């Protein structure tokens, strides 16, 4: 009951690179059962760029599941971008979950853009000014929603899809001073409480691909500048790993 998950993030599509990505997606159905997009699909977050993303990833022969990233919020058009993607048949998670049948297996995907705040012992707290409380609360509320979404999932494999990172491991190469803006341990804590097979994120262009949460969930940073390939493919849960 293996499932092959393709993933990439931070494609930052725009008019100047329209159509460049699509040829790399040819034959994806032979390599993977689903494609996950880990946010920062656009650069300016405009509806025009949202249309380019929709054209680039529509009508693939595998289901496509996306979350937005911070760039996709820049023009306050995130709802319109989400609608454009959905009209093109692309699933968009907003701190919720969906189940995708993959042959005999059922794959559950939970997620949303996530948010930041830092990592255990070196992070912001809900204390002091309202602005600081709101900043940290946003991450905590997202983590709570993911926890609930994971809890309710009755599937064979569970993958969490986020833009922001749950761990420091995959940020290696980024300046340590900006780690608090790249992710939050609250995301990892929520996922570790319920367990998952894989946590996929983007955002950290100078980071590394592989990491693991404190609870042992594998983390993969699939930001395009990290992967330097059209997408990564992760094979989950084959009885015979060699068959993946």
């Amino acid at each position, binding site marked *: 009951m293996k499932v092959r998950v393709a993933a990439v993030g931070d494609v930052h599509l725009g008019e100047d690179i329209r159509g460049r990505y699509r040829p790399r997606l040819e034959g994806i159905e032979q390599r*993977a059962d689903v494609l996950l997009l880990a946010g920062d699909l656009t650069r300016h977050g405009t509806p025009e760029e949202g249309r380019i993303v929709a054209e680039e990833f529509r009508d693939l022969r595998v289901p496509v599941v996306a979350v937005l990233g911070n760039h996709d919020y820049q023009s306050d058009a995130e709802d319109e971008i989400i609608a454009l993607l959905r009209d093109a048949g692309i699933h968009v998670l907003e701190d919720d979950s969906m189940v995708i049948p993959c042959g005999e297996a059922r794959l559950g995907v939970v997620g949303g853009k996530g948010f930041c705040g830092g990592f255990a012992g070196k992070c912001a707290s809900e204390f002091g000014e309202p602005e600081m409380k709101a900043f940290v609360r946003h991450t905590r509320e997202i983590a709570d929603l993911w926890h609930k979404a994971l809890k309710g999932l009755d599937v064979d494999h569970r993958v969490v899809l986020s833009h922001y990172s749950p761990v420091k491991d995959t940020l290696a190469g980024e300046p340590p001073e900006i780690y608090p803006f790249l992710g939050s341990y609250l995301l990892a804590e929520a996922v570790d409480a319920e367990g998952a097979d894989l946590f996929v994120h983007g955002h950290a*262009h100078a980071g590394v691909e592989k990491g693991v949460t404190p609870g042992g969930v594998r983390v993969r940073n699939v930001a395009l500048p990290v992967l*330097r*390939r059209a997408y*990564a493919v992760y094979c989950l849960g*084959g009885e015979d790993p060699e068959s*993946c």
Partner: protein
Amino acid sequence: MSHEAPHSVASHHDAPHYVAARVQRALAEDERTYELGIRVDIRGDQLFLRGQVEGAERRAHVAAVAVENAPGLTVHNEVTVVEVREPGEEETL
């Protein structure tokens, strides 16, 4: 009491530390770039840009924004364009 501004004000404002920060902020906030991951280093009168962008046009915009925000410095654009290669081997988890 002197009414002249201290000589040090201008030079402090133009300290390489602040110029680099100004360029980095402009790269993040200027709509021509919106690039958050470009490293900016200043050594003497030389400014170095490092990082990755998705296209050649974006690479040129990064240098243009840096030049505008760092007058008098020579800008070295060492930013590279991300090459999107074929998907490679899958990983079994």
